[in-house]
């Protein structure tokens, strides 16, 4: 009983980069359909998942974000044709690098959500929040200053 309360105390900070044409629209659909999803997520809209620079992700993790989600269009459906494919390469390599350094690579997640998948978006957010809750708050590379 006590353990459950303690784990419930940690509310993760999730940051989601959502591509304007697919996943952001999907998130919007979840909203208009009144589908509930974890309030832990803060959304940043980008035009394409391929715009997400790995440095953004590192900056987010450094500033205390516990999990970064990147939402793009399904492969083959990118509004700009190739953006999500490029994002796939970058995020795959970034995750391998973080794992090798000793940082849990589950803290970065790439997902495909289309504009009509409102329910899927909510499910992804809820599952991801639960996963990050289990992993725990980010500590290793959090910005720490002597001040």
């Amino acid at each position, binding site marked *: 009983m006590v353990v459950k309360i303690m784990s419930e105390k940690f509310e993760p900070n999730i940051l989601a980069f959502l591509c304007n044409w697919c996943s952001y629209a999907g998130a919007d659909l979840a909203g208009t359909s009144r589908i509930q999803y974890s309030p832990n997520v803060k959304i940043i809209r980008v035009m394409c998942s391929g715009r997400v620079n*790995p*440095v953004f992700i*590192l*900056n987010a993790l*450094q500033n205390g974000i516990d999990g970064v989600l990147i939402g793009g269009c399904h*492969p*083959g459906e990118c509004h700009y044709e*190739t953006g999500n*494919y*490029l994002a*796939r*390469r*970058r*995020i*795959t*390599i*970034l995750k*391998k*690098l*973080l*794992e*090798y*350094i*000793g*940082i*849990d690579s589950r803290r970065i997640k*790439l*997902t*495909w959500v289309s504009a009509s998948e409102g329910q899927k978006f909510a499910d992804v957010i809820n599952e991801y929040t639960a996963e990050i809750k289990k992993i725990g708050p980010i500590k*290793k*590379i*959090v*910005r*720490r*200053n*002597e001040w």
Partner: protein
Amino acid sequence: MVDTKKLKNEILKILEKKDVKHVICYTAGSYGFQTRPFFISKKEDIEKIIFSPLCLHNLSLYVNNNDEKKIGVVVKGCDSKSVVQLIQEKQLDRKKIIIIGIPCKGVIDPKKLREKISEPLEQVDVKEIKDKYIITFKDKKHEFNKKDLVFDKCLTCEHPTPIIYDVLIDEKIKPTGKEKYEQVKTFEKQTIDNKWKFWEEQFSKCIRCYACRNVCPICFCEECMAEQLNPQWLYRSVNISENTIWHIMRAFHLAGRCTGCGECERVCPMDIPLMLLNKKLEKEIKELYDYIPGTNPENIPLFAMYKPDDPGGDIK
């Protein structure tokens, strides 16, 4: 041992051309095991040129097309891969560089040599006889096994002969080693917390001198992300968080571009094992995308292309 007479003759031939600014080669250093890059533009300086197993610099760092005139450069096997990578990334015009290739039998790591003999004031002479190095200075003679003194990269070298050149100084050499990523594989087996413990210790040593970035021929950004102030990604504070982000950032920017010359690890004053980091990405990229940097000047950069069936099928 490399025929330095032939090297000097080739350089003289190049200097005779009117449209050459200088040739980047090696000359003797000021003491002990030191050698240094040398920019020869006058024929009178020809006798200063050397080539020995102590010539460890990657001279492709100094090649650029800023001048109208051509530039000559002496490259070993690993250095030539950096030249190829720079051509691939449109940083160098192949027509404006004259490449003198030297098939390389290995380069001595001064750190390993200093563990065996303390560095003298007098310049040492190195002779290569079969699988041994004979190092003489003053009246002392030392003999060592080559494999005990060369850089780790030389033990697994797959390109001893330069893959791009206008003139080759010696006979081509067949590769004697194969990159099996042994150190990376051993490290991968550790638990995630042990991995962090290791890197936390290493990155805590970092003094953010940026020597690794400055000696890297592939780090050619005019304004490095580390120096950007608007927005500022990296604070100038030196602590484990900023240091780790710096190294992750740099390793990621080298992914698919680093040719494994090892200069970053050589120059690091705090002995951080940077090649252990860069080799990991080299291995992943080879396995995942069958992509090897620095081998084909016609290649498209790794992150500028994709295949529809790229790994990542587990992404939903």
